[in-house]
């Protein structure tokens, strides 16, 4: 226990080895050669969350119960995106659509006296399941609704052992 050893204080050795990754180990130089799934699947770490699928509303899109969803909240939802939606107190996994699924209805909301919509708010929006058991839902002003995040990857376990 020499006094010199005692005084060894490294200034911030953590910075270049990433968040919570500990501190540089002698093996650090070799670590870059790994394929890091986090880097590949998570483009915006601060905005990315994982979720688990429950139920069968997306089976026709090959998304099944137990699958893990990579959800990126930073992405603006667009036509055809699979998204985790929050509607009237529940999370629901749906495709986002701005086109009337029944065919040729108007794609903007009927104007109501005294209500002014921005262009985005005038757009009608539907939530489409991928299972004919469930009907499409049109989101209206009476729904408590947000797109919680856009699904970027679905992780599926295929080996059941």
């Amino acid at each position, binding site marked *: 226990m020499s006094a010199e050893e005692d005084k060894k*204080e490294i200034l911030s050795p953590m910075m270049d080895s990433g968040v919570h990754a500990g*501190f540089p180990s*002698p093996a650090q130089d070799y670590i870059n050669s790994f394929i890091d799934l986090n880097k590949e699947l998570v483009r915006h770490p*601060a905005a990315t969350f994982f979720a688990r699928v429950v139920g069968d509303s997306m089976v026709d899109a090959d998304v099944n119960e137990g699958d893990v969803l990579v959800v990126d909240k930073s992405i603006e939802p667009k036509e055809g995106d699979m998204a985790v939606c929050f509607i009237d107190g529940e999370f629901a996994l749906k495709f986002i659509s701005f086109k009337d699924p029944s065919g040729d209805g108007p794609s903007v909301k009927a104007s109501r006296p005294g209500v002014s919509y921005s262009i985005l708010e005038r757009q009608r929006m539907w939530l489409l399941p991928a299972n004919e058991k469930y009907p499409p839902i049109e989101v209206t002003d009476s729904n408590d609704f947000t797109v919680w995040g856009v699904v970027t990857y679905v992780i599926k376990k295929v080996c059941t052992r």
Partner: protein
Amino acid sequence: MYALVDCNNFFVSCERAFQPELEGRPVVVLSNNDGCVVARSNESKAMGIKMGTPFFKVRYLVEQGRLVARSSNYTLYGDLSSRVMSILAEAAPRLEVYSIDEAYMDMDGVAADRVPGICSDLIKKIRRWTGIPVSIGIADTKTLAKVANHFAKKYKGYKGVCVIDSDDKIRKALALTPIAEVWGIGRRGAPRLEAAGVKTALDFIGRPVEWVRGMMGIGGIRTWGELQGRRMVEDERDEKRKSICTSRSFDMTLTDLDEITLRVSDFAGKCAEKLRDDGTAAYSVAVFLQTNRFRDDLPQYFPDAAIRLDVPANSTREVVAAALRALRMIFRSGYEYKKAGVVVYDIVDCDAIQASLFDFDQETRDRDDRISKVMDLVNTSGKNVLRLATQRPGHYSDGIRREFCSRLYTTSWSDLLEVK
């Protein structure tokens, strides 16, 4: 310029990020053991529920369905905090994380007229990316930025960003700021000043400097100058250590976990002592082990592991317990270890830790402080006469009441958000 970013009702906002149905409803978050209220939504504040209210007093409201209570879920709050901070770190030339839900962005080098716009964009981005609402106060000094932040929170018209950037605005803002709300004075310092006729921050800066010195000493002069837009509170963290490492090579190689446990306990104890010397506490405790790399005839192993604590710690007991948890994660038998070390990092000032955080399980914390002080005293001779009997980790978290705890949405595979 400084921009103080403060998360609105942070713990409640974290709960709402994963349970949007709680938006608009009165919510409280409870301390460890579900003892008392430590965070409130605006709606529960409006119901008259005070900070620190013992939970049993408002439990009937929960049973009647008029109030939602959540046990504290620090793991979740810590994760969301680091997400918010990482977004801020990208936007600011320099970021000083002040507590779990507050950070100062040092905007020097950015044109002053661009700062409010950058801040407005950040508010939207943080809300969108993490679900957390934040408010930002902008001014030339930290103390004024704190005042500005208060206005940004209080008045909806600011849309989350309040700038105090002229003498006129300073005077107007200070006239509306009760002296007890000023950073550095607070409820403890206020009564004496109020008795002397200083009711608002504006009254305070109207007093001559000699009067302030006589009343409050040097600390008071700092606050007095800062409120007038003169920078006097420097970044104290710059002078303090950002991480502390205690490591040592062993006299001979060790193979036995018990032997290494003893050494690592000592190193961790040393780190805790240094934290207390600095008046700081650490969020993270890491341990590393090394075999002898010059003996290529022997199997080599250089593992490390880090434990992230819910609440920053500087007591010997907590730092040692965390280090031993990390040690158990990495120790493998069959190797001859030559060196071990403990690093504590993510260091914050003790006074930056929210009072509410330190209230949790205050009794245990006080006891820890007393034990640590005695140990410091006895150990000043340089020899570690007193050390903790090594304890099983988890011993202290067992048996804690968490009746209303939400899931570990971001840190546990079995707790992920479920989507139908």
